[in-house]
């Protein structure tokens, strides 16, 4: 088992190198640091001196790949590629373009993101599975048809509507909870209720439809017929057999997104003013802070690949038929 996990982790390395090269090309080759400096300084008061000093301040004044001027090993290490891209592997994120320590900011902002993402995932899972089971219980009736149509309608509504509508209805008209903001500790709860609720509601349509399809597939299998034939009630069949077997694809499907929960949700966090990683990314995009965006791209890829590895491992854990190949 350990050898298998190790091998899977080793597979991830070339992919991470690929991601690293892509971000490097995107951020430093497509547009040179000079272009970036001009953009940051504004087009008007730009001169060679200002560009050079901006580059020196932010450490972009080195050559891209090979520094012929530096002595010895410095030929390779004293370059933008080494300083800005390779150091990401050590999770050494460096400074943002506005001079803040990115690693520290990420460590701070990760918790509010998790405080929203984890409840949304858990509550959503519970609700979606219950609804899907209920629909499957009423399969091939008008309730089933109506519920599927409702799911498609819910799926077709823009996520922006759920957020804007929810804020207007619950926050402004009913005045139940504050519209946006955040607090430390337990006081944060009242700020979290609405975003979590909206996050769950906006996911219902697609998930219930998917889970219903998974359950329906199980319902028609032989072992379910056997269970009925030996006289089990519908409840026992549903919870004891159908749910248990359909949970395998559902849970393994969720494992892949688990690490990405850290990244938070761009929309929810920016709408509700929650200081998580999602709003961190949005702010960076708005301010055109390339250093932060570059780090977030790398971090997102690492977490996604981690999710893939975890998925493989979880398959082997829950389904003994999958061999460790």
């Amino acid at each position, binding site marked *: 088992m350990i050898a298998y996990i190790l091998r899977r982790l080793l597979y991830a390395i070339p992919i991470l190198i690929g991601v690293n090269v892509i*971000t490097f090309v*995107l951020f430093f080759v497509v*547009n040179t640091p000079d272009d970036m400096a*001009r953009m940051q300084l504004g087009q008007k008061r730009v001169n060679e001196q200002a560009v050079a000093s901006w580059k020196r301040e932010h450490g972009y004044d080195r050559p891209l790949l090979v520094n012929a001027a530096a002595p010895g090993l410095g030929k390779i290490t004293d370059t933008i590629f080494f300083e800005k891209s390779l150091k990401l592997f050590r999770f050494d994120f460096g400074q943002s373009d506005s001079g803040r320590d990115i690693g520290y900011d990420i460590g701070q902002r990760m918790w509010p993101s998790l405080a929203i993402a984890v409840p949304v995932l858990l509550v959503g899972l519970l609700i979606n599975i219950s609804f899907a089971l209920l629909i499957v219980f009423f399969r091939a009736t008008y309730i089933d048809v109506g519920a599927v149509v409702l799911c498609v309608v819910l799926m077709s509504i823009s996520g*922006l*509507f759920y957020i804007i509508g929810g*804020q207007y209805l619950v926050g*402004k008209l009913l005045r139940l909870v504050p519209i946006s903001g955040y607090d430390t500790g337990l006081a944060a709860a009242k700020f979290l209720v609405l975003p979590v609720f909206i996050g769950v509601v906006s996911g219902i349509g697609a998930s219930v439809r998917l889970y219903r*399809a998974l359950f329906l597939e199980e319902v028609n299998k032989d072992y379910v017929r056997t269970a009925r034939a030996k006289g089990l009630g519908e409840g026992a069949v549903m919870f004891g057999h159908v749910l248990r077997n359909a949970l395998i694809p559902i849970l393994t499907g969720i494992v892949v997104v688990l690490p990405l929960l850290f990244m938070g949700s761009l929309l929810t966090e920016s709408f509700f003013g929650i200081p998580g990683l999602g709003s961190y990314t949005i702010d960076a995009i708005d301010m055109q802070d390339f250093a932060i965006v570059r780090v977030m*791209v790398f971090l997102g890829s690492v977490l996604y690949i981690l999710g893939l590895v975890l998925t493989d491992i979880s398959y082997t854990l829950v389904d003994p038929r999958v061999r460790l190949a």
Partner: protein
Amino acid sequence: MPVPVLLATDALFFTLFALLLAFAALARRRDHLRAPWQAVARSRIAVAAAVVLASYALVGLLDSVHFHPRLEPAGPHGGATHSTEVLSLFDVLVGGLRTQKEKTYSAPLATHLYAKEAIEGPAGADRGYPRLRYGGAHLADPEHDRADDLVLRIAQGIALAALIWSAMLAVAAGRRGRRAGSPALRSAVELLQGRSPYPTRVLFLSLAVVLVLCCVTARLAAGYHVLGTDKVGQDVLYQALKSIRTGLVIGTLTTLVMLPAAVLLGVMAGYFRGWIDDLIQYLYTTLNSIPGVLLIAAAILMMQVYIANHEEAFASVAERADLRLLFLCAILGVTSWTSLCRLLRGEVLKLRELDYVQAAQAFGVRHFTVLRRHVLPNVVHIVLITVVLDFSGLVLAEAVLSYVNIGVDPTTESWGNMINGARLELAREPAVWWSLSAALGFMFVLVLAANLFADVVRDALDPRLRTTR
């Protein structure tokens, strides 16, 4: 003569349309290609959705014919000069909607401005709601006459719709009657009763609904701002209609742009296996592992830097906005082609072991010919399913991306930009709801129709992928 302008997205949009027509012409002649689409046409849901989609597509196509309008000759011997502004055929058709700007917000069908202002009256300056410049300007006494005028216009709209609808029914019944050798009137009744293999009753019902909506809106729009005006007084209905083209372009061109790469790489990976397979798998796993939104954000940021540093490379604002739209399609394509590539690879892995492919290989048929003749035709359904399934997701994605400022150019009309511009309007007192609702409503109808249509197409083309029973 106006000078025609062919923007990059226009060209691709028309190419796509031509491809569709060519495929339809091909499918008419081949039984096995026609069968699944006949199954789609027999579905009531698909027919109703198709009517909605077709009306959206019509607006989108009209809005893709661009030109520089001609200006009045400057002097007696000066030739015709052309404006630098780029208009579309659609702009010409809707006439005043584009130019009739109010001062600021006004509610749907309103005759007065949303905000109080000082009005110069005979009795001196007074604070009140001033009359709109265009909305209901033909009414002498708005409070009194507006309701009657609205009813009259709605009635005219319905009458117009009824006229067009009957004309369509008459043409359809005439053709059907000639083929069956029965009187046209009886054919019309049969069509309305749905006594045909195809759901003609649903077809004409949904046509009626769409026609009534269009005609009534058109009649009302001639005298009012049907969906109100936004902050700078621009007609909201006009913006929502113009956004249709952006939505359609994103939804269709994205898949079109990524299609060649995805099909080529996916088929090659599955067919050749070995190191080619490894390489292609590595490529798409790497691209796929970068979260989509972040990759788009990074690419759009770089695009912005490039545009800011190369402003002289673009002839007009419209051209720049158009290139950015195309670039957005391309980058959305990069983030979404991997799933199609993986699907194709899996399918081709299965196909290459089948007897007829093995036989062709044993006969020494060249790889390229085997791929073209035996493999590609058998994966077309997967491509088609992906194209229709992806559409609605992409339309929704556009709104979110534009909202985060990494979507289309701020000067392009799109539902995302409308929502972005209106993000604080609900907090006003009284709430300004019409801009948001118009954008969300137009988007909802398109996405819902696309989702319903896609489900039917998927079931018809590949029964194995069926999720509903």
